[in-house]
């Protein structure tokens, strides 16, 4: 697979950061709807989702399958695809944990925002490699507004 990149509108980026700040010191998570094709992937909209995991909300989140189905349905209705997910790492770097790797599929873009002491810092995006051994970092290209493919 050649180098991957993800186009994200400014507004979506702003909302990912804001969601991470809002839920700090707990994690936030949500779905990314967009388009994928010809080596280019673009996020158009985000769908914030609830964290269903209450035993350790500070460093674990879980979006139940029903919410995933809902996000898929929303994408379908808007003629978009569910291209990935975002979540926050409160007071941790914006890179995937072992736990993240165990609970992921290839293809999806996994965007992580690091929220340090309540302030949104780095935002990175990752794709799980096919052998599940590691993530490949995907470059985020911020765009002024969705441009379509």
């Amino acid at each position, binding site marked *: 697979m050649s180098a991957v990149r993800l186009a994200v509108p400014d507004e979506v980026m702003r909302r990912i950061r804001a969601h991470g700040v809002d839920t700090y010191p707990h*994690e936030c*998570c949500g*779905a990314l709807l967009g388009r994928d094709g010809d080596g280019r992937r673009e996020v158009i909209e985000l769908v914030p*989702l609830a964290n269903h*995991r209450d035993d*350790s909300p*500070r*460093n*674990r*989140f*879980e*979006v*139940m*399958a029903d919410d*995933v*189905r809902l996000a*898929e349905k929303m994408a379908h209705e808007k003629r978009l*695809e*569910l291209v990935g*997910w975002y*979540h*926050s*790492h*409160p*007071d*941790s*770097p914006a*890179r*995937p*944990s*072992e*736990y*993240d790797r*165990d*609970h*992921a*599929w*290839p*293809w*999806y873009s*996994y965007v992580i925002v690091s929220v340090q002491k309540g302030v949104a810092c780095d935002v990175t995006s990752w794709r799980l490699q*096919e*052998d*599940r*051994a*590691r*993530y490949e970092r995907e470059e985020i290209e911020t765009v002024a507004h969705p441009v379509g493919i």
Partner: protein
Amino acid sequence: MAVKVIIPTPLRAYADKRESIEVQAATVAEALAALTTQFGDLKKHLFAEDGKLRSFVNVYVNDEDIRYLQRDQTSVKAGDTISIVPSIAGGAPKRGRVFPWPRKR
């Protein structure tokens, strides 16, 4: 009995780019076994090394989560549709335990 298994977008690359596959099966377990026999590369994304479904992988028969039916022994009949849906689980590293990433080999 022929049942339809819907392949989620992220896994289509391992199933001939197909959106759905028809398999012959009487239970969910048989359907998933038939699917992963036909498309071996799907296996590691659905099953953990111990052979159990990965904890974030959910299976629905028509619109019912098999956890509320008979799990993988849930029977299926001709015309049923099986969907594979991920839960999205993730987490920040535990405080003070930052993993080296990417992992060195």
